[in-house]
């Protein structure tokens, strides 16, 4: 009992967390010395509290012999440190609120790894997710407030919630449960129409309905970023469970048709595309943001202007969707690529968990969450660098935003629970 089989995992985690803390302390120290203001001690207190919270979680897991993946928490600690340091540098008020949300997120993570460790029960409620998800997306259309052109927030008085951030978890849960049950039918078909094996409508009907409804709702909210993430995650999970490229191609074709349709129908979609193709033509208006983002990306050079020495405030919404521009300006190409590598490591660990998972549900769940996280990071970074048209989504764990942060911690918790289960079922060969 003194050396439980998960001991080495937590030891690795502890060492890695140490380096994440060193990183946070360097950042906080730089802000403390470079921005002398009346309340700068807050920086150090915040950094130390954050460290203590991560450390507490790590300690709790060591104590309970939790077998979750040892790399994810340190990676998230790096994201959170970057987030706090840059938000403090951009606007201390945001940093404080983000800090509070981070504590709530870590608490949620603790709850999930403490009380939801038998996550398999989640497989039983798929139609509850479908219904909750639709309601969650419907609410903002009637009671929502508009921010940055998208009507996807609910005002709860004390703070605002963006339901689509949580619905994406429900979407993955629903798809994992549904596909785990029906994947063979979808992959091989239960009937033959003109020589082609096809599944019956009761096998693909609910899938298409749930997905179609969520996309429609997002279009009404003008939340194009979330729609794109839902769509790509959906395709990724369908491909994973069926291996039929035909579905992916069909989905891609539907997407192109939908994109072309909305380009013709909606003024704001048309503008997005035109700004993407030639932002310089709209440099004073709609293209201003992305052009300023490119300037910020270029201003840092290879090593960055240094924390606090850049001018990222020229980029509108730099604390949310565009935080990557600020990071690259001040930490340079090296810092920007470093952040990308951390996302790649996160995605890599996610897929390792998925590959080790014991059954279809766990496998699909881990794949879905990992794909979701990776695609979201890719889509927003590609958007702010003009590789893809801009769609407003948050950079996971880094952008300012409570809903997004808490939702991502829920995903992290479920990923960890899946890997914990695998760890327990593993034969004792390595010990």
């Amino acid at each position, binding site marked *: 009992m003194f050396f439980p089989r998960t001991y080495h995992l937590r030891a690795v985690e502890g060492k890695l967390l140490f380096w994440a803390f060193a990183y946070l302390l360097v950042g906080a120290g730089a802000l403390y010395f470079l921005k002398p203001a009346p309340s700068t001690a807050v920086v150090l207190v915040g950094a130390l509290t954050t460290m203590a919270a991560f450390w507490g979680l790590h300690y709790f897991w060591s104590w309970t012999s939790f077998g979750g993946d040892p790399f994810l928490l340190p990676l998230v600690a790096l994201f959170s440190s970057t987030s706090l340091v840059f938000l403090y540098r951009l606007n201390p008020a945001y940093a404080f609120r983000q800090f509070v949300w981070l504590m709530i997120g870590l608490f949620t993570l603790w709850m999930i790894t403490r009380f939801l460790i038998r996550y398999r029960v989640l497989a039983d409620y798929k139609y509850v997710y479908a219904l909750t998800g639709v309601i969650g997306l419907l609410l903002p259309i009637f009671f929502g407030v508009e921010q940055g052109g998208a009507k996807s927030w609910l005002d709860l008085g004390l703070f605002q919630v963006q339901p689509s951030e949580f619905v994406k978890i429900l979407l993955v849960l629903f798809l994992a449960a549904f596909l785990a049950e029906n994947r063979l039918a979808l992959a091989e078909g239960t009937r033959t129409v003109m020589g082609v094996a096809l599944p019956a409508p009761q096998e693909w009907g609910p899938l298409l309905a749930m997905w179609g409804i969520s996309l429609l709702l997002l279009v009404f909210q003008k939340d194009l970023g979330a729609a794109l993430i839902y769509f790509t995650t959906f395709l990724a999970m369908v491909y994973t469970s069926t291996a039929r490229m035909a579905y992916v191609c069909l989905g891609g074709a539907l997407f192109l048709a939908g994109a072309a349709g909305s380009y013709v129908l909606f003024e704001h979609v048309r503008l997005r595309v035109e700004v993407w193709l030639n932002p310089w033509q709209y440099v004073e208006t709609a293209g201003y943001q992305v052009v300023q983002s490119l*300037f910020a990306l270029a201003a840092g050079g290879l090593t960055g202007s240094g924390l606090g020495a850049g001018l990222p405030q020229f980029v509108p919404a730099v604390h949310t969707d565009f935080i990557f521009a600020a990071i690259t300006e001040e930490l340079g190409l090296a810092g920007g690529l470093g952040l990308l590598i951390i996302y790649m490591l996160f995605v890599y660990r996610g897929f390792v968990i998925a590959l080790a998972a014991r059954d279809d549900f766990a496998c699909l769940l881990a794949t879905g969450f990992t794909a979701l996280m*990776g695609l979201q990071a*890719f889509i927003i970074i590609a958007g702010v660098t003009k590789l893809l048209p801009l769609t407003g989504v948050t950079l996971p764990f880094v952008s300012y935003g409570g809903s997004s942060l808490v939702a991502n911690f829920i995903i992290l918790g479920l990923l960890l629970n899946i890997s914990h289960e695998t760890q327990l079922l593993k034969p004792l060969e390595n010990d």
Partner: protein
Amino acid sequence: MKTNIRRLSYVILGSFVLLSLYIGYINVFLGPALATDPHNRRLAVYEAKVHRGTIYDRRGTVLAKSQEGRRSYPLGKNAAQVVGFISQRYGRTGLESAYDRYLLAMTDEDKIEVIIDRLLGRPRVGNDVVVTLDARLQLLAMRLLGNRRGAVVALDPRNGEILALASSPSYDPNAIGQPAGRSRDGKVLAVYDLLQKDKRAPLLNRATQGAYPPGSTFKLITAAGALTTNPKVNERIFNCQGSLIIDGFRLTDTAAHGEVDFRRALAVSCNTTFARLGLEMGAERFYQTARAFGLTLNPWAGGLPEVAYRPGTLTPPEKMNKPQLASSAIGQGEVLVNPLQMALVAAAIANDGVIMHPHLLARVQDPYGGVLLQSVPRPWLTAISPEVAGVIKEAMVDVVREGTGRGAALPGITVAGKTGSAQNPRGDTHAWFVGFAPAERPRVVVAVIVENGGAGGVVAAPIAREIIRAVLTAGP
């Protein structure tokens, strides 16, 4: 299902790799242009914080400096297009724009210095840029052009250093933002607004952005192509009857030159001989020769654009019929060049066939005189073989000694050159001269054009002569 997961992970991680490469491309390759883009508000902030560096010519003469918060240009209109100007309102041009990053100390190398300055509370000072221009030569070139429209280029063929880029008419960059009158609807117009509307195009750097028919100076390229195809051309005798009929098109000459050899043909600028040589060579080879001299290329492509440059144009070989080929071979037809390009043609002949990369930057130095960046001469193109260069060089010496270019002759110095009188749709011919000296060991190449000036040998050659004299008597 595990295989599918593996494939999906390759796709997602692969797209991250792609994204990394793309961001690296933006940062490294587009970075310099983005950093100095007029829409970038960072520039104004840096501008306010930094004491902008000075631009010097090769002898230490100030070309642009910051004084009491404003930028001044001591050479005024004599170097306006090449030195350029900076203005919040009208943007930035010329060397001021090209070397913004150095003048404002914005490069990666400057970062440590910037941090030290900040810690010590020192004001930030930009770096100084030293260019290869020679202010005295530039002033002389502008004086020689006088009120005429035209351009003068001087460069060192051995290393590609540009010594003078004169363009006339010009303007005073010190006065760019001053009020100059009112428009019809009562708005105040600045000097710049008037310059932009001026039909004589004073803002245009004719030396590098001009698009002129090259006239007979283009025979140098035809000669190079003919000699490369067949070295025996040098021993042939041509018979000039004063005109030539090609597919019903009549190409006339200035005179019936009678029996001439190759050198004589170049010396007297015989149109029929060179038209014939062009036809013998064929369109494809003719085009390739022009390209070997860099005609349709931009020497600054892919690097830092030091000056706005308009590459020459020539009809592609597949679209060129025989009459067009014959007229292009003598620099008429659909050929357009800029004066720097013609200087580079002469530089190839002067430098045994190799064109050194033309450049304006000599070095960048920090405010204490330490050299941060030193430009290194490097070859740009190999246009012709040394043998071909040698034959053309001898013929060019004849041009100045006893041919159309006598106006460029200097006592005690062997000058090589070629004249041109280019017909054009607007009035008198453009007067051209390109050449170099001393012919044995060339130190300076000159290209001169005077728009609608008349005969090249009469109008342009004497300008080139004075430039050559000034360079060779002033020492290295």
